[in-house]
């Protein structure tokens, strides 16, 4: 079980962060991600392997400034 923005998600332990983000419909370009309280650099999404009990916070941005 992996917690994403407070919600429990099954089936992503052992998968990469990229696979989870894609599976949940996030667009990697427009988000920032914290894994267990640490920011994940954008070029690491494909390399981070998720494990049971991980806690993710994902923030999505929209354009305009």
């Amino acid at each position: 079980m992996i917690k994403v923005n407070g919600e429990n998600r099954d089936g992503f332990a052992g998968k990469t962060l990229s696979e989870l983000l894609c599976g949940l419909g996030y667009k990697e370009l427009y988000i920032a991600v914290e894994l267990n309280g640490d920011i994940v650099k954008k070029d690491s999404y494909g390399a981070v392997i998720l494990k049971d009990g991980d806690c993710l916070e994902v923030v999505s941005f929209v354009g305009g400034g």
Partner: protein
Amino acid sequence: MTPSYEEFERVMTERHTRPVYDKLRSARVAVAGLGGLGSNVAVSLARAGVGELMLVDFDRVDLSNLNRQQYEIADLGRYKTDALSERLARINPYMKLTARTVKVTAENAAEIFGGFDIVCEAFDRADRKAMLISALLGECRGTVIVSGSGMAGYLSSNMIQTKRAFDRLYICGDGVTDSADVNGLMAPRVAICANHQANMIIRLILGEREV
């Protein structure tokens, strides 16, 4: 004639009290992007008496900017760093200003912003917001970012809020109105969002971490 430093200090101290003014005066803030958000944030921080600002933008003032950004006709074609530096110096001549006319990337972000504890993220594109935040929070362990996301159109002002997204990331905006989807960016909501950012920055300077 420009009032003296002592005159500035006297009125600011009378308004804010000495302890508050001293904290503002010793604060250093970097502003990433000098469009509708960044130019308004910078003006508010200059008026509030923040001691030092670093302004970062690669772009020049365009006619399409004048509907919401702190520039005027005479600034068209000038670098935003130059035009805004002059405007800020006319508002608060005793603030220390530095400017970097450079395009921020994931590779140079830490070098540009690393010396600043508080960074205002004020880019226009969503991918660039996400890039800056991911790069800076990852590489600069002491940096706090105050970001803007969602301020287009003319929906209710009251949708715009300040939230603490991560421990070192605050996001101001409605979170949903994308400038590409709705009726474009308009001065009031952009300035509301910018001043949510400016106020959160002032709260951080004064030791308040909650929104």
